[in-house]
Structures are given as C-alpha cells and as structure tokens.
C-alpha cells in the first residue's frame, strides 16, 4: 500500500505520480490522505490500480478515469468521474452536481444521494445511485445505464437518446421525450448484475424498478415538436 499525503505533497505531485503508473505496475494499492475537498484528485489515471481517498473531495475527482478502481471514503464535489472511460469509481457519501457527466464507460457507484444533472450526456457509463438523484439527471443521455434505488427529481431524461434509466422510487417529473417502458426479463438480468457490481445487492430487488427510455420523437427536428425543444 502506497500512502500519499495530499496536504503535504500537493495535487500536482499526486496526479503526476498516478499518471506515471502505466500498464502493469507493482504499486497497485494507493491511499490518499488529507484530501480536504481539493479539486481534481486522481483525475486522468490510466492504470489498473486501486485508489482509496480518505475523506471528501472537490471538483472532478476521478475525472477521465481509465482502468482504475477509485473509492472516495467521503462525499464528492461537482463532476465526480466526469468523462470516465473505464474502471470503477465508488463514492461512499453523496455526490454533487453532474456526477458521471459524459461518461464513456466503467461503473460509477454513489452510496448516498446524487445532486442535479447526474449522468448528463452519459455515453456508455453505468451509474448506480443508492439514494436519490436531483433534477435534470440524464439530460441528453446517449447510452449506458442509470440505476436509482431512491427517487428522481424534476425532468428526468430530458431529450434522452438511448440510455436506459431504472428508478425504484418516485420520479418527480419526466423530461421531454422520456417515457416509462416495460421492464422485460433482459432488464431484470441487467439490473441483477448492476446491483451486484454496484454494492447494492440485498438493498433492492430488480423487479421493484421501473424502466424509462426515449420515446424517440425528438431525434430529428420536426416543426410540430417545436414547443418541446
């Protein structure tokens, strides 16, 4: 286990060290202490390592993550795991706005609540939120899966493309072109896997979720839909 004191060593040294880990490395376990809400902690990591952040983080923690497993033992500020490519990011507490925004792949798990715009413009990432998500979540979400064990705020999935949204609790309102869809056996299988990998097994049953997806009416401009744009 490599321990890195962020307060003593500074953010540039941390990220330069983590960026130096390429491909196979013997330094596979990292612990970052004294994060104190700093920005861009462990952003841009590109190696199959395990990183644990002991405390809460600021903006863009684990942004652009590739291959690494990054666990935040606290809450995360805006843009956690933004544009993640692969790997896993687990936030033990809450996440601020636009968690997992534009994510291309990998798994983001938020064990508390996520704030507004969670999964905005997601492009293949899987997101599992144990609590609730805020308004405008999954806005223009393109592909990937969003699983919410709690409730969703206003305008869920506005202008949605092909991302699949699963919400167990209430949805305050659906955004333009987002509709409820049938939960079929393949979705139960998908949920079973995501709940397991999202450390939510036993917290919820796949059958308790409702599925939401795109009505596919806003894909191309149609003057009859002008009011909905």
């Amino acid at each position, binding site marked *: 286990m490599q321990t890195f004191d962020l307060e003593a060593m500074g953010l540039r040294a941390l990220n330069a060290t983590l960026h130096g880990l390429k491909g196979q490395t013997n330094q596979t376990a990292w612990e970052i202490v004294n994060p*104190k*809400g*700093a920005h861009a902690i462990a952003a841009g990591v590109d190696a199959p390592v395990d990183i644990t952040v002991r405390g*809460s983080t*600021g*903006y863009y923690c684990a942004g652009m993550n590739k291959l690494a497993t990054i666990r935040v033992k606290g*809450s995360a*500020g*805006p843009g956690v795991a933004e544009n993640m490519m692969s790997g896993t990011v687990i936030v033990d507490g*809450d996440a*601020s*706005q636009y968690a997992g925004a534009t994510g291309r792949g990998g798994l983001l798990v938020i064990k508390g609540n996520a*704030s*507004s715009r969670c999964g905005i413009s997601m492009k293949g990432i899987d997101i599992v939120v144990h609590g609730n998500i*805020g*308004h405008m979540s999954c806005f223009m979400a393109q592909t990937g899966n969003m699983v919410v064990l709690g409730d969703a705020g206003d305008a869920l999935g506005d202008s949605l493309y092909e991302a699949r949204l699963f919400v167990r609790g209430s949805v305050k309102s659906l955004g333009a072109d987002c509709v409820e869809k049938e939960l079929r056996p393949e979705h139960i299988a998908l949920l079973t896997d995501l709940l397991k990998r999202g450390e939510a097994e036993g917290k919820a049953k796949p059958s308790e979720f409702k599925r939401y997806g795109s009505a596919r009416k806003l894909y191309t401009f149609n003057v009859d839909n002008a009011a909905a744009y």
Partner: protein
Amino acid sequence: MCGIVGLFLKDKALEPHLGQLLTDMLITMTDRGPDSAGIAIYSGAGEGRAKITVQSTNPTHDFKDLDEDLKNAIGPPVLMLEKDTHAVLEVPLDQLDAARSALAHLRPGLKVMSAGESIEIFKEVGLPRDVAARFGLAKMHGTHGIGHTRMATESAVTTMGAHPFSTGSDQCLVHNGSLSNHNSVRRDLKRAGMTFETENDTEVAAAFISHKLNEGSTLGNAMGATLTDLDGFFTFVVGTRNGFGVVRDPIACKPAVMAETDQYVAFGSEYRAMVGLPGIETARIWEPEPATVYFWER
C-alpha cells in the same frame, strides 16, 4: 464565479473565534474570486447603541476629527474605530438616522457600508488575504458573519461593487451568479422608494429583500419571493441582526454546501472552505436543495 462563506454560531464559546474562522474560510475561496473580498460581521453593540460603518477613498482626510464633528452634530457619546479605509462609528440607537444625515453633510465623500445594532461591513478590491489583513478580520468576534470573494461579471471591480451589500438596517446579502432582470426590478424598487449606490445586480437582490422586509414580510417569505421575481442564476446568503438564510435558484448551477453541528451552521461555495471548522468530520453536511429557502434565527 464567486465564493461565499458564512458562519452562524450556536455556541457562544466560538464567538471570540468568528473572525479567525471566517477569515480562513474566505482565503480558501480566493480561487473563486480574486478581484475583491468583503465580510459582514454581526458583533452587537452596547444596549441602546448602534453602529455605522463608513468607507472613504481618502481616509486620512475624511476620518480626521470625524467622531468630534459627529458628536457636535448629534450629541454624545460617539465612538470611532478606524480600520484602513473603513471606520465604525458607534452612536446612540435613537440618533442613528440623525447620524446618517449628519454624516452626509459633514463628509459628503463617505459611503455608508452598513448601519444597525449589530452589523459591520468591510469590503475592498484585492486578494481576500490582503483585504482580510487590512481590516484585521481575524481578530473580530461576533455571533454570525458572511464573507464573499468576487469574480466580477455584471459590473466593474470597485469597492462599492464588492459584496456584501447592505440595503437595510442590520441586513446584508452576498451573491454567486448573475441576474438578468435587475434593471427592471431596480426601476420598480426606486419607484417604491429604495435607493441604490451602484449599477450592480446583487444590490438589486439585497434591496428587493429589504423592501419585502420593510413591507412586513418574514425573512423566509422575503427570500422565497426572489424565486418568483428575480430572473437569473443565484445562490444568495442573507444576514439579519439575528438571522442567517440561504436560497438557490431552481436551476441551482451555482454551488453550495452546508454543514451543521451543535456549535454552528456553516455555508461554503465548496466543501474545502469548511475543512478547518471544529468538528467538521462529524458535522451533518448537505447541499441545499434548489428553490428552497433555508434560514436560522435566534
């Protein structure tokens, strides 16, 4: 972008440390607003006493014998404490309006930053660390305070464009965001008798709340009315003599984090502003909901 910090103490034992705690929070928010900084601190006054904080671009001239001149105009006792470009004048509470009128004649160049039974406001252009040092913020005590670091968007980087804005007795407001209908709201408020020092959007929000309070609204209702009448992006933190409030617009893209313990309620634009507070590790920490009014009163 701007930075906001706020601290409302529940535990009297922390009151001597309010200035130090707020100064540390303010300096941490320098990245969000290096143009100017300001702080409103509520530290009370003696029974039957009131305070006026004034600012001058020429303090050596304006503050010379100001206490004597004011005493001759409104009667004793008048106390003055100079702090860099600002001075705090303590006057009898029943002479507060008379003192303000007298000041306008005695020193026409002075700007009144705040007036009331408890509030003092200090603000200047420059890095938060430098502004805090000039006014000795770290040594100030009080019951609650609000600080702001400014990255200007709507109006010029000037002392009067810095936050907090005070538009009513013991009231202040700071803002992260920008308002788009402030000119029309300012016109309405002017017609209703409110006066303005600047072209700044935030001053309009402050005056809007002051006007509602003057009409008899509660702090909660006055803050709630910003959600229907003000258009734009905002996280507001508001102070009154005995209260502290927070409201965010329905889109809520301007960040806000709150922390509460048995000792205090704290606000920060970012969590890192609060990491030095006592007991933060076990505090209840949350993000204020959009379009929801939060306030605490003693």
